[in-house]
């Protein structure tokens, strides 16, 4: 029963995510593209929740579906008086070719590889790791990944200062 629900949830989320992403790159209306982007982000958040990454699912909703989407929508509206259609560049056939080649290479290597897999239903000691992921990730960030954590803070500060100085009125 639970398995059937998980299968159904995975396939519907995967279809929503891929269709949303495809709509983003195909539509010519930037505002519509931003809204489809939100659909795709929410689908990815659902997939995170399905694979025991509840913390990331919430962060995905807050940062992407919340913050990034609002930023993109604002930018799309600010620049919408610039009347230019979002048509394709001359590189489009090349882009199709490269993406399809990369896709087939990735799918081929995923199918060919011999994975050393954990079982779908985790044994007892391992299942405990995935019960309280926010606390465990917090401990990891402040212990094993402390230096990257600090660098990420500096990066965000630099991004804020850079963005402010770029859009400042001269």
């Amino acid at each position, binding site marked *: 029963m639970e398995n059937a629900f998980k299968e159904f949830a995975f396939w519907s989320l995967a279809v929503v995510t891929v269709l949303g*992403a495809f709509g983003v790159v195909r539509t010519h209306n*930037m505002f519509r593209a931003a809204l489809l*982007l939100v659909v795709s982000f929410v689908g990815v958040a659902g997939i995170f929740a399905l694979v025991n990454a509840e913390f*990331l699912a919430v962060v995905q909703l807050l940062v*992407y579906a919340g913050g990034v989407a609002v*930023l993109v929508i604002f930018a799309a509206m600010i620049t919408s008086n610039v009347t230019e259609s979002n048509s394709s560049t001359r590189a*489009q056939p090349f882009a199709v070719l490269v993406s399809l080649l990369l896709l087939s290479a990735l799918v081929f290597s995923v199918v060919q590889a011999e994975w050393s897999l954990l079982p779908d239903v985790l044994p007892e000691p391992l299942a405990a*790791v995935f019960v309280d992921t926010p606390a465990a990730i917090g401990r990891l960030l402040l212990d094993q990944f402390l230096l*990257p954590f600090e660098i990420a803070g500096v990066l965000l500060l630099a991004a804020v200062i850079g963005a402010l100085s770029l*859009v400042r009125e001269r």
Partner: protein
Amino acid sequence: MLERLLILSAILFCIGLYGALSRRHVIAVLISVEIMFNAVNVALVAFSRYVTPAALRAAGEVTPIAESTLLAGQSFAVFVIVVAAAEVALGLALVIAMVRTKDSVDVTEASLMRR
């Protein structure tokens, strides 16, 4: 389960790549890159949940090291999200600066540094 998650991630990545290479609107290119970031996060989370860490395989039982490596993929995804947020903030600032100076959102016209 791992295979289908990775294939989903590959499809998303290639859609993003196609958009980033072929669109003319700067914001469209930016959000295509965001889709690629998302695809990488899906792959990282899938690896974190389904691939047995080497430390676990060697020890045969749960050690503190194995426990932390089980969630390393999810921690990496947190960093990817941070970098993506910084990227989109800077990118949209660049878009607004570009609209101010060139009154255009066409990437093929952003050629100030080309000789």
